[in-house]
């Protein structure tokens, strides 16, 4: 299989949309996926992410728009003739077949020679660490093992794009962490292109090199995990990816007045805005710790709750009716502040984002 080295993306969606019973599940959207990408389509349930995955796999045809895979238009090509393979959320293994037969099924359908079949099954079994279970019936396997069979069954087809639908949702926390590591290892070792759908932002951050955040049938932001965390483009993205403190305010004539009091200079259109600041960007100290300065936001509040998490201390601070979360210090360096104590909290203007209110 020749590796495509030119700059053309592997998958290109143009103006793809889908309605169910008059309700738009996916609004017209564009998306490109490059060779070697590990893309997460992230969003809450009902945001259209699974519909989008089904459109890429061919289980659904879009109402309008086109899909290209490796330069070929596959908009109306059914799943059995697409260079994509899917790992289903509920695995969808064939219960009447053994592990080996499950993995070999795609090659058997393609009438691959028996010796090639055998060799590639052995390769896959080794890749996903299923050694010794080849002749077991799949119904007797644990969830994690079934997940591996589903992965091997799809990967043996050497898909141009591997699609995963909430691949780890059915596993318990321990297993989920282990499978995250496994998936990264497998992605690295075969150098393929993976696209997965998830509602779990932690999973998206842990696995993907690129994230597309979906909301209400639209992709609201795409980028590396870092870009999305550091520079969320909307209020929704900022709260969906990681924790965020939101402070309402009004922009007027190049300045923003927060409802909680502080005023600071900020270019942008007039109207209601929201200032977004991550808990770890907020500093906390005694009421007289810092003096007010034009390049930072300073608020006075009362500590409501203190949780010693270990790597940091989580403070819940009441400020003028609303509550802010502050992650401070690490380990033993964490400041010791009691519940009920008056505090000052502050952050530098460069550490928050001002977004228009939605």
């Amino acid at each position: 299989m020749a590796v495509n080295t030119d700059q053309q993306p592997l998958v290109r969606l143009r103006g793809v949309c889908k309605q169910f019973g008059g309700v738009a599940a996916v609004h017209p959207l564009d998306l490109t996926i490059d060779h070697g990408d590990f893309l997460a389509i992230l969003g809450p349930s009902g945001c259209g992410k699974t519909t989008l995955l089904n459109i890429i796999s061919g289980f659904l045809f879009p109402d309008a728009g086109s899909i290209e895979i490796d330069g070929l238009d596959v908009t109306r090509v059914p799943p059995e003739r697409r260079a994509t393979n899917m790992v289903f959320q509920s695995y969808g293994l064939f219960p009447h077949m053994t592990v080996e037969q499950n993995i070999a099924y795609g090659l058997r359908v393609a009438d691959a020679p028996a010796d090639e079949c055998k060799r590639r099954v052995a390769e896959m079994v080794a890749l996903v660490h299923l050694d010794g279970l080849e002749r077991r019936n799949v119904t007797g396997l644990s969830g994690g093992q079934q997940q591996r069979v589903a992965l091997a069954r799809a990967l043996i087809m050497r898909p141009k794009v591997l699609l995963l639908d909430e691949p780890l949702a059915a596993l318990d926390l321990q297993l989920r962490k282990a499978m995250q590591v496994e998936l990264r290892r497998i992605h690295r070792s075969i150098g393929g292109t993976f696209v997965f759908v998830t509602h779990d932002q932690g999973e998206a951050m842990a696995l993907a090199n690129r994230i597309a955040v979906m909301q209400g049938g639209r992709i609201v932001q795409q980028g590396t995990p870092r870009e999305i965390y550091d520079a969320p483009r909307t209020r929704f993205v900022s709260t969906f990816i990681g924790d965020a403190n939101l402070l309402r305010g009004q922009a007027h004539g190049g300045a923003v007045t927060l409802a909680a009091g502080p005023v600071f200079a900020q270019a942008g259109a007039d109207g209601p805005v929201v200032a977004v600041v991550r808990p770890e960007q907020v500093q906390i100290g005694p009421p007289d710790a810092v003096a007010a300065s034009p390049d930072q936001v300073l608020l006075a509040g009362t500590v409501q709750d203190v949780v010693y998490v270990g790597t940091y201390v989580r403070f819940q601070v009441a400020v003028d009716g609303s509550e802010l979360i502050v992650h401070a210090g690490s380990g033993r360096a964490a400041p010791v502040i009691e519940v009920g104590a008056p505090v000052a909290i502050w952050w530098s203007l460069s550490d928050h984002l001002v977004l228009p209110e939605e």
Partner: protein
Amino acid sequence: MIAQRGRYALLAPSTGVFLLCFVAPLSYFLLLSFYRIVSYQIDTTITGENYIVVWRDYFRSLSFTFAIALAVALSVTALAFGFAFYVRFKAGRFGILLIFVALITLFGGYLTKIYVWKTILGQTGILNTTLMTLGVIDEPIGLFLYNPFAVIVTLGHYLMPLAVLPIYGSLRNIADTPLRGARDLGASRWRVFFDIILPQCRIGIVFSFALSFLFAAGDYVTPLLVGGPYTSMLGVIIQLQFGMRFNAPLGAAMAFTAIGICILVIGSFDLLLRRLLRVPT
């Protein structure tokens, strides 16, 4: 250990009934089939003569009976599969309604259905009168009733809803995702049907086949009422041996020959299906 003993205790009553009412009489008749009737008395010398008589003198009705039973079982299983498949995969939320309708027809009862077909196929039946009214024929056709065809239709009509249930039950246990999975791996709809759906409902198909085959092979009321003089089904003849002919040993031999053939036919059907679906035996 207590749990083990408890389990056997629960089985005891049904095992008792089974031994007393099934195994014991059947063993008696098996023994009887090796005896003879000599001048209206049972002669207890062991002999295989009855079985020779069955194959020699009754071969025609034996083969006729099983040909009819096979025809009934195959057509009923095929029709029931089509119905169950439609209900499971195509009918959507109307599926349950269709199953309910199939079950309701069971209320009709066995004898009722026989008389229904007598009414439809008879000399002055609905079929003849309709054809005459339409001017297709001038006088009633007697060919509809009292022939093997009428037996097959009547038995098939009775067995259909019974045969639907096992197949529908096994089809319902098939999950949707594996079917999508197979298509994703390159299988056409036809291959999905053969590789994924059929192997998973094999047991249901064999069960429906066995049910209809056994019933059709053992039935002696339907052939008497709609079969006419040429349709000498084995059930009718066996009944005669125990009744008017006073030859219970021969009747028993016929019955055991029939049981043997049934086991053989159903076993072969299962084996054939396994071969066809490449299921390891």
